């Protein structure tokens, strides 16, 4: 994808912002991103930037807010309501959610049922890795019955040539 500002370099910085209910997207190369103050900790306003293309105008100091590119949910609204706007929001806000999830749940990794489309051959969503950790814990705590059960489960999920 091409940079929206210089129309030359490859865009590596992708930004989305909601302004007056309208979603604005801009793709920038490293150089232009830097020149436009994207790296500036104070941030910038996307709309002003779009309007100011090539005019060398002063970049606004309003902090840029993390926004879901699919539904337009903003970090502020998410924080306020505690609800996400769509599935893609988990890509946008998910990274910082580990602490929240740790407080809410038993773990931070899903180990249950998987829909057909997500069952990729050769990928097990970290389940074997998860089971191995629990196996070690069970052995350390001398819970041998549980350890045996976990070992069987790992065996079932691992192809014979790579089995432990």
């Amino acid at each position, binding site marked *: 994808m091409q940079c929206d500002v210089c129309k030359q370099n490859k865009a590596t910085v992708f930004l989305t912002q909601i302004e007056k209910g309208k979603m604005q997207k801009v793709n920038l190369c490293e150089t232009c991103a830097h020149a436009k103050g994207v790296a500036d900790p104070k941030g910038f306003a996307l709309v002003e930037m779009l309007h100011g293309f090539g005019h060398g105008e002063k970049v606004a100091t309003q902090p840029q807010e993390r926004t879901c590119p699919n539904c337009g949910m903003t970090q502020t609204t998410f924080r306020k309501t505690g609800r*996400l706007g769509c599935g893609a929001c988990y890509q946008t806000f998910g990274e910082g959610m580990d602490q929240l999830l740790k407080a809410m749940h038993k773990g931070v990794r899903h180990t249950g*049922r998987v829909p057909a489309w997500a069952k990729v051959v050769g990928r097990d969503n970290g389940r074997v890795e998860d089971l191995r950790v629990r196996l070690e814990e069970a052995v350390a705590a001398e819970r041998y019955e549980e350890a045996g059960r976990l070992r069987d489960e790992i065996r079932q999920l691992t192809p014979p040539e790579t089995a432990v």
Partner: protein
Amino acid sequence: MMKFATLLRKPPEWMLLDGPHRDIVITSRVRLARNLDGPAFPGFAKKEDRTTVMQELQPVVEGLPEMKDGFSEDLGGLDAIRKQVLVEKHLISREQAAKSGGSAAVINRDQSLSIMINEEDHLRMQSIRSGLDLRVAYAALDRVDEELDGLVKFAFHPRFGYLTACPTNLGTGMRASAMLHLPGLVLSEQVNQVIAAVNKIGLAVRGLYGEGTEALANLFQISNQHTLGEREPEIIARLERVIEQIINHERNARRKLVEDQPHKVLDHVGRAYAALRYAHILESKEALTQLSMLRLGSDLGILPSDLGRTIDTLLVEIQPAHLQINSQRKLGPEERDVLRAETLRQRLAGVPEPRPESLQPPVDPEPPVI
């Protein structure tokens, strides 16, 4: 498709069956939250987008073999009383009842499965069974989930699992719960200790109609809090183990009451019998408390053993919306209290007087859990 009148008249399957531990566990329920991959969740979606999702999902859900000849209705097509009837029957949530257009409820013929479209998530599917039967309830719902999985694409993330509007439902999207009748623990003042212990191990305790509702009729809903990090069968097994322990505590409490304070038990049951058979004004709270004592009387041999099922039906039928729909008009609170007492007098007219000499402690149907 089934008409609302049929749904109202037909008792749900769980009421006609005697599931395991039916004397203490009224029902077991499992709920799964699912969303479509792509469209915004109902709470954040624009009205048109919500309608599009509903128009896509409603025919798919109606077409499931389990939902054949079932009930299916746009919430916009139901008046407030009809929506409240569905809440009182535990078929839709209070949250969904507050919605109108762009949301739908699909319920199967025997009322063991209900699927809400566009509640907090695109799909909220529920399975309900008599007694302590969480595995069977889950198995029924898992089949529906599997079928839908072949028809639509669910929002899913390899690490977070099934994606939901609220992060508290993330992962399995599963909430399993059982409705327990615990008069023994309430009368012996042990119930708060039990609730505290249950909360401590990560399970939630709620009242008759869910979050924030009072523990009326000595009924308590126990459910899992965590949905992420554990597999569905593990969540269910853990919940089941805890519930079995509570059942034992309740049986022990009843046994102790019968042995140490038989007059207290007989007094409660006798007063409940008198109130329900002869009162002319009964507020909801009192009626529910008295029905709870009557059910205890039936469990302890003082009243006929088959009375339990009638009582479970009445717990629903004396709720405000049921009273109003059965009288086919809107009623004020005072009128409802009169009609409630009348309904109870009629429905309990043939019940013989309590027989104190038949009072007997509960027997364990199975060897106690160690």
